[in-house]
């Protein structure tokens, strides 16, 4: 747990350490830069310099500590880094950290401007404490150097820190998604202020320091003069006669000297008798043997002799310094004018830049709000103009893309609508199909019942036929017996008579059976007719089902084409989105390239700035001859500053463009995901439609089989009817033969009374009867074979009925599958429509 905590707290601590190190290193570098100026400004001895460096080192450590305490932003960011590493950072903390990352550079510049003069003052006072011999002028010079240090360090520090914080700032900006929230968190610093501040601080401070250097040089000149002359003048026996020639340079710039006896205040010698000054009053407070100083009117330097009875004082009126460096008082006016010009030039450039950027920002905001109309086009001759044109290009390609996406979304929407219609049409057709299948099945069931009925009748018929035929055979046998014995048994008339009676009974019985046969035949015929009606119904239902299946196939095929169009539309959208992404990535890359170019410009400007500073200093040293060059150097410096300020803003603008590009790309990716989902839904709908087409086709072919089976059945039924006709014919024949026979019987009966007389006639009649019996037998044979055929046909019919029923069952299952597929497809097309609506909503954000 403890190690985990330690690991989790590392990023924040590392961050703080890094910034403390940066502060320390940048201070050290700045001190190294300022040191040569200080060396020139202060004529100290080696021990004093040693003390100075120790003091400086001590104070740097203290002040870096103070600066860490002052830089709240760094602490805030370190805290956030820790929380983020532990995964506990809340949104408020992140927003605060973002604000801190923005504030950091401002804080660093402020601290640098505050701490350098404060630090220099602390160093100067500490030096005065440790080495009281140091003049107050040196203390002042140190403070001035501190101010210069602040001016030198702040741009450097700002640059280094801004560069250092940039990745973290970009990361935070990515996490805080809403630009409005970021805008609220940022404390704005207008470009005008930045530019004015930079121009003023980089102009005023060096000028003030330059003036200090000039003054110091002058005072040193007086001191040099005093040192050079001390031996000669302080120890001279005849000081009154000292020649004035050797001090011509000092006197020529307005300086004067006095050799005084401090005991009685008598002036032993002086440079110019007419000059009125009180040298003893000037050095009244000074106890040292030699030194330099200043009062309200003049700078002075003095040196006492060993005995203490002489002191030489050199004085230089403050007004003379101007004369020394060759600068007339009106030049100060010119300096103020130059400052005013620099400030107003900075103001104009800043207005130009911030105005351009404001237009570009408005433009970017309009594009972000989705307004792609070319209401206004920003144009300028500089890099902002390039950026404006890039914006225009981006807007145009976005417009083109949005137009294409809208068209594709319209197509998708239409196709999805059609698909939904197709789905409901398929569902309706499938339901119709299902209904007609149920009807067909009912009809088939009734056919089956009828067939069963017919079979039963046929079986009854068959039984009757059997019985009839047995009676007939019996009768035939009796007839034959009768015939064979007729010739020989005329004497046995009684026997014959009884045989005849028996035969008559057989014939009556047969007639009864023939009636039963006729009834069964009539029943069968009506059942077959009924069955034929049912079959026509089945046929009609099957035809309707086939038509519906064909309709389902057509509709589903249409639906599948819609699906393919939809996917093609989605494909077009994806291609369009890819183009947008490419365009935006290209824009990001261009921005990166511009950034690289701007970095180069920035480096050049930085170098120019340093060169200009150097040039200004060298120009100042060159005196009158360097004056014109100093003005040029200042101009160069101004230009370099303006360039640096512009490049910074361009840099931040480029970053804004890059982060907008990233946001746009992520929006496009979201859109692309919904396109993918839409394609998947469409594919599901398409698959369902394909399944529907397939099953509908199968249903169609099954139905065709059913129709064929029914037609076969119908043919079989017709055959049965035909056979029944023949049965009826046979029955009629039977009836006819029976009645003939019965007529024959009547004759036989009449004949029995005169049997003996009419034995020949009997013989003839029995032959006739045998003929009738044969006729009956033939009729019975016809009936039997017809009944057998009927039986066969009925078995066929039952089989094909069963086949029909099973096929109906299959069709019904397919119809249900179709129904389910249609429902599935309807839901898929509903989802597709939703996806299309979402896409449309997204697109409607844009106004072309």
């Amino acid at each position, binding site marked *: 747990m403890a190690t985990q905590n330690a690991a989790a707290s590392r990023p924040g601590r590392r961050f703080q350490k890094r910034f403390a190190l940066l502060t320390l290193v940048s201070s050290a570098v700045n001190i190294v830069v300022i040191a040569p100026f200080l060396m020139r400004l202060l004529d100290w001895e080696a021990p004093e310099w040693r003390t100075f460096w120790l003091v400086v080192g001590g104070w740097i450590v203290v002040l870096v500590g103070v600066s860490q305490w002052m830089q709240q932003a760094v602490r805030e960011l370190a805290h956030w880094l820790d929380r983020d590493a532990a995964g506990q950072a809340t949104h408020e903390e992140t927003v605060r950290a973002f604000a801190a990352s923005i504030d950091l550079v401002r804080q660093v510049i402020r601290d640098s401007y505050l701490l350098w003069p404060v630090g220099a003052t602390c160093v100067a006072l500490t030096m005065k404490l440790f080495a009281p011999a140091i003049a107050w002028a040196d203390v002042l010079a140190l403070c001035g150097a501190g101010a210069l240090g602040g001016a030198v360090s702040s741009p450097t520090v700002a640059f280094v820190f801004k560069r250092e914080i940039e990745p973290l700032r970009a990361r935070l900006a990515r996490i805080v998604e809403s630009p409005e929230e970021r805008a609220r968190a940022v404390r704005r610093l207008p470009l005008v202020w930045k530019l004015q501040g930079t121009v003023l601080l980089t102009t005023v401070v060096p000028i003030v320091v330059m003036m200090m250097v000039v003054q110091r040089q002058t005072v040193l000149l007086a001191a040099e003069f005093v040192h050079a002359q001390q031996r000669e003048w302080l120890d001279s026996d005849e000081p009154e006669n000292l020649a004035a020639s050797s001090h011509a340079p000092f006197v020529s710039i307005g300086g004067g000297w006095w050799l005084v006896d401090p005991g009685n205040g008598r002036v032993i010698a002086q440079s110019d008798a007419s000059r009125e000054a009180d040298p003893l009053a000037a050095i009244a407070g000074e106890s040292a043997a030699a030194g330099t100083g200043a009062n309200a009117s003049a700078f002075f330097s003095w040196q006492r002799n060993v005995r203490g009875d002489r002191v030489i004082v050199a004085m230089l009126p403050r007004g003379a310094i101007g004369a020394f460096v060759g600068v007339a008082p009106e030049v100060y006016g010119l300096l103020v004018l130059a400052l005013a010009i620099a400030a107003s030039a900075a103001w104009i450039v800043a207005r130009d830049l911030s105005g351009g950027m404001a237009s570009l920002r408005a433009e970017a905001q309009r594009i972000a709000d989705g307004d792609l109309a070319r209401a206004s086009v920003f144009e300028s001759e500089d890099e902002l103009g390039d950026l404006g044109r890039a914006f225009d290009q981006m807007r145009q390609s976005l417009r083109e893309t949005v137009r294409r996406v809208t068209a594709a979304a319209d197509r998708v929407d239409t196709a999805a609508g059609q698909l939904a219609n197709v789905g409901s049409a398929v569902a309706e057709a499938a339901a119709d199909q299902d209904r007609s299948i149920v009807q067909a099945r009912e009809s088939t069931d009734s056919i089956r019942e009828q067939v069963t009925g017919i079979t039963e009748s046929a079986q009854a018929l068959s039984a009757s036929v059997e019985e009839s035929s047995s009676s007939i055979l019996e009768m035939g046998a009796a007839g034959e017996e009768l015939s064979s014995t007729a010739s020989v048994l005329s004497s046995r008339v009684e026997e014959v008579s009884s045989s005849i009676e028996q035969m008559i009974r057989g014939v009556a019985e047969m007639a009864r059976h023939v009636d039963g046969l006729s009834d069964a035949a009539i029943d069968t015929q009506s059942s077959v007719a009924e069955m034929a009606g049912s079959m026509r119904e089945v046929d009609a239902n099957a035809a309707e089902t086939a038509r519906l299946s064909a309709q389902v196939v057509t509709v589903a095929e249409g639906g599948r084409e819609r699906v393919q169009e939809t996917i*093609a539309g989605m*494909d077009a959208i994806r291609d369009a989105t890819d183009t947008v992404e490419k365009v935006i990535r290209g824009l990001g890359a261009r921005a990166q390239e511009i950034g690289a170019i701007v970095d180069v410009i920035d480096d050049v400007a930085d170098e120019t700035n340093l060169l200009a500073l150097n040039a200004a200093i060298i120009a100042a040293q060159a005196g009158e001859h360097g004056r014109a060059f100093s003005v040029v150097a200042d101009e160069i410096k101004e230009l370099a500053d303006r360039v640096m300020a512009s490049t910074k803003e361009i840099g931040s603008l480029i970053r804004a463009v890059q982060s907008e590009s990233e946001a746009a790309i992520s929006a496009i990716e979201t859109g692309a995901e919904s396109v*993918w989902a839409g394609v*998947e839904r469409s*594919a*599901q709908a398409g*698959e369902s*439609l394909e399944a529907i087409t397939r099953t509908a086709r199968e249903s169609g072919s099954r139905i065709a089989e059913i129709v064929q089976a029914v037609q076969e059945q119908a043919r079989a039924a017709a055959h049965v009817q035909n056979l029944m006709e023949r049965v009826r014919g046979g029955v009629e024949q039977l009836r006819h033969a029976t009645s003939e026979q019965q007529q024959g019987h009547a004759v036989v009966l009449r004949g029995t009374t005169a049997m003996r007389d009419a034995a020949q006639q009997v013989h003839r009649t029995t032959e006739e009867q045998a003929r009738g019996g044969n006729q009956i037998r033939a009729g019975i044979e016809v009936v039997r074979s017809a009944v057998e055929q009927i039986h066969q046909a009925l078995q066929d019919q039952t089989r094909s009925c069963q086949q029909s029923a099973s096929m109906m069952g299959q069709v019904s299952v397919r119809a249900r599958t179709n129904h389910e597929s249609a429902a599935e497809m309807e839901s898929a097309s509903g989802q597709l429509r939703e996806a299309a609506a979402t896409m449309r909503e997204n697109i409607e954000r844009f106004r072309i």
Partner: protein
Amino acid sequence: MARHRILIVEDSPTMRQLLVFALKRLKEVDIVEAQDGMDGLRKVSSDHFDLALIDINMPVMDGLKLISLIRGEDNLREMPIIVITTEGASEDRERAIALGANEYLTKPIQANKVLRVAQSLLKAE
């Protein structure tokens, strides 16, 4: 880098369209479509492919048969195969893997998954 050639063997035109849509996302690919196992076999034996996506349920010749024929050829033994199975038909899937398919996708097909699996197989190759 050379262009990858991908073969799709699938009887459903919609499914083929979806697969083409997903695979077009891979840059530098040529996609060839076959509408059944026999068509797929003709194409795979007359041309080189870096990847084949094969559906199981197809008319004329099914996917399992096609996979076993492909794995029987010496020069096709190393070609990566993604088999497309119906949800719930785990038996088919296992058989396909046993016959030599490298990966499987289950219907309903997710375009992203197609892309991922295809990418990993092309990379592995």
